[in-house]
């Protein structure tokens, strides 16, 4: 890990963990909210020295997750080929889960007493698939102008915006990702028009009336940054900075220096943008940096060292294979496509072997989608990348490849203690595939999220249909 900055932040102190709310703080938050609304009972209890109006403090976690797991049956999947997401494989394995948690993963000797037994022989079990890069909800379908909520492209740096405030939970793409792709968790990012696009949000892929009902409890926030062509095109095209790659860096560096000054200034007024940047400097918010070219990624890693933050993952990273050594040394993941190339200049050197060469170099690989279509087939994208590596002689086990779309993604999103692999005590986010998930011929048969069966290909009633689709042609179709 890069240099850790610790500041005295009186007036802006932060909680130890995002999303963890002490009950007293919740009460305090209710009280202050009450006073802001002019409600008398709460304010009358407040200390007379306290300001009359006060927002919740950042560490109180505004917009908290309201998600809680849906009921599930104690379930035993028996006889499957199990990829545990952490690089393990069990043939003829048994997976037990109940009360929302994985209980045990092992062989046929595990007792299934007290569990509903599903014969999974000939089938495969993986952890829920995780997409680290999605715009579902903030660029939902239908893709009409009124739904373009992913880029606050009015300033090159908008750390103050939060993706969750753009997410439309009725995006039909969420259900497709679950039913066809086995997606159980995903990170929604702002777009890449801006150098600093704003906070990301990590969701459980559970249908909900509100985004709060999808927010992954306890997941850290991410911070979207972008280098290269997009920011300089968007802003240079308007005759303003940045219009070059060097302008991108100058703008970013000055913003980081401003954030450091803010963090050091006990008297500064609250500033939403700066709060997010300080969260990054403190290591609580994870940087997800859209970046294609190898040389630019190397520069970004040095910029991070200069400012005192850490890049968690480069996204897209089509040239990551050129600097696998640097990425390994800096412990930065590459979240990549299997085969996208050529659509813009900085994507010209994309090759199918990117993931395999990174793995060979000992660097962290995550396969991502950035697409409402490909999120339905991350397993197939991973398989493509695997085959390309195997053709050039790089050994890549099926179990390791599954980790590219499960545990590695969870690690880079800071949720690996909770999900991403089938280990006792972890969330029972589980996919039962009707065949080898690394084959084009396989589909999710059932998907559980926190132990609740939320998709069953054999049962129409376990097929989510968003509000938007009701009463429309094809409502409830297999899709």
């Amino acid at each position, binding site marked *: 890990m890069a240099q850790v900055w610790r500041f005295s932040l009186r007036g802006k102190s932060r909680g130890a963990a995002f999303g963890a709310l002490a009950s007293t703080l919740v009460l305090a938050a209710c009280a202050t909210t009450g006073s802001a609304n002019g409600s008398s009972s709460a304010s009358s209890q407040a200390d007379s020295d306290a300001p009359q109006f006060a927002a919740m403090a950042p560490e109180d976690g505004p917009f908290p997750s309201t998600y809680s797991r849906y009921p599930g049956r104690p379930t035993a999947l028996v006889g499957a080929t199990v990829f545990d997401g952490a690089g393990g494989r069990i043939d003829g394995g048994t997976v037990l889960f109940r009360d929302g948690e994985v209980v045990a993963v092992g062989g046929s000797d595990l007792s299934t007493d007290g569990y509903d037994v599903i014969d999974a022989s000939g089938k495969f079990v993986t952890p829920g698939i995780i997409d680290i890069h999605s715009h579902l909800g903030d660029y939902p*379908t*239908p*893709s*009409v102008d009124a739904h373009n909520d992913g880029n606050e492209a009015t300033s090159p740096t908008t750390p103050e915006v939060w993706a969750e405030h753009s997410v439309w939970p009725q995006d*039909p793409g969420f259900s*497709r990702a679950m039913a*066809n792709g086995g997606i159980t968790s995903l990170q929604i990012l702002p777009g890449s028009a801006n150098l600093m696009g704003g906070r990301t949000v990590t969701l459980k892929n559970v249908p909900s009336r509100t985004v709060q009902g999808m927010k992954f409890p306890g997941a850290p926030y991410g911070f979207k940054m972008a280098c290269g*062509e997009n920011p300089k095109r968007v802003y240079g095209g308007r005759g303003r900075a940045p219009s070059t790659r060097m302008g991108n860096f100058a703008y970013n560096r000055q913003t980081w220096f401003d954030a450091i000054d803010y963090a050091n200034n006990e008297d500064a007024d609250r500033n939403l943008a700066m709060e997010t940047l300080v969260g990054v400097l403190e290591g609580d918010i994870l940087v997800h940096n859209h970046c294609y070219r190898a040389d630019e990624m190397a520069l970004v890693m040095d910029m991070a060292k200069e400012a005192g933050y850490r890049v968690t993952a480069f996204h897209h990273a089509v040239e990551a*294979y*050129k*600097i*696998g*050594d640097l990425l390994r040394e800096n412990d930065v993941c590459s979240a990549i*496509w299997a*085969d*996208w*190339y*050529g*659509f*813009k*200049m900085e*994507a*010209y*050197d*994309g*090759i*199918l*072997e990117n993931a395999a*060469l990174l793995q060979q*170099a000992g660097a962290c690989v995550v396969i991502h989608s950035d*697409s*409402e*279509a*490909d999120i*339905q*087939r991350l397993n*197939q994208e991973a*398989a*493509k990348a*695997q*085959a*390309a590596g*195997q*053709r*050039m002689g790089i050994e890549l086990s099926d179990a390791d490849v599954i980790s590219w779309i499960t545990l590695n993604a969870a690690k880079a999103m800071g949720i690996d203690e909770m999900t991403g692999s089938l280990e006792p005590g972890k969330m029972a986010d589980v996919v039962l595939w009707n065949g080898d998930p690394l*084959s*084009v*011929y396989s*589909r999710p048969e059932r998907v559980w999220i926190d132990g609740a069966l939320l998709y069953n*290909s*054999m049962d*129409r009633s376990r097929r989510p249909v968003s509000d*938007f*689709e009701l009463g*429309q*042609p*094809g409502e409830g*179709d*297999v*899709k």
Partner: protein
Amino acid sequence: MKRLLTFAASAIALSSAIAAAPASAQDFVIVNATLALGDGSEPIEDGVVMVEGGKVTYAGPTSGVTSFETDEVVDAGDAWVTPGLFATVTTLGLWDVGAVSQSNDQRAGGSPFSAALNTAPIVNPSSQHILVHRAAGITRAATSTRPSGSIFAGQGAIIDLDSDANPIMRERAFQMVSLGEGGARLAGGSRASAHVLFRAALREAQALSSANRGTPQTTEITIDDEVLLGRFDAEALVPVVNGTQPLYVAVERASDIRSVLALREDFPRLDMVLVGAGEGWLVADAIAAAGVPVIADALDDLPESFEVLAATQSNIGRMKRAGVTVAISANSGTNPRNMPQAAGNLVALGRIPGAAGLSWGEAFAAISSVPAAISGYEGEAGVLAPGAIGDVVMWDGDPLEVGSVPTRVFIGGVEQSLESHQSRLRERYRDLDESTLPKAYDW
């Protein structure tokens, strides 16, 4: 020099000849193939393909072969052998980098021409995309500019993807028009305008083509400085209205499809192909009755727009069941090279209750013989049958499986290089060793 062989185990022993890759067309026979003919049938074990003079002379089971004369015998060792894939509709050869406008000839929004645009002279056979897609087993393609300045895209070409200087099989092979949401925007903001523009354009063409060849009523249709139809465009539509040039109609919504099928009431000779048809399954019987083939995306299942609210991956399977001729669009997926993945997914779909997929043979045909037939090459391309072009691909696995790639590609009987910018990068960065010299010297 030809060798006369009696087909027996001894033939296999001669397979060492595969080491020498021929630089030009030569006769060859592939034995011990897991053979997909591309005609919709299921694969054949122990298949044989014979190519002579650049044409297929035999493709089928070993039992159908007695003896043959050839230059080279290739023992496939049970590997998959198929016809070359046929990609439609693509923009292959028309661009280098999508977002680099100087390198991108897909759209001509600022042009005074639309239907008159001709793709043939601008196809670049050295484009990296041609090289990459050749290495993915695509040997022929329909390629065209896209509707941009007006509803008409221009005249597309059928191309081969071999390495010689001439990629054009047929120029002015088809015209394309957009009559859905996209066409409505181009025509001034409403489908109503798109339909009037379309009919006006075809009437101009009728006037130009009639026996008492008359003067068009209008010489030009414009909005401000935008030319929606000029004289050259009207002339280019003469073969469309006469039915000698197919008209590819980009349309998605069920009601739009019905309106397009009804165009033949006014223009009975139109030879139409539907492109897109995202809601085709809702009107599959009408499409089948009209005998209009479809080029459809395989995996679109989201309401990306209000014209595809009913999108489902079962669209192609349901249309096929209704009797529609359907090719999988080369746009199914990020690149045309993902066509086999799209086809494989439709095979997978067959196992999901309530869904309509395709059999393996149907799925493979939907990226080989069916698009070839829609393009006017029935029995000639996308299929291994006597008389067909000698486009043969050997694979390292099931060609519809996501991990599979070609190991050898023959186009017109000529073995092709599978190298590209991408393969060169792969070799350069096989390791990151710069201990003696920078990577720039590693080539």
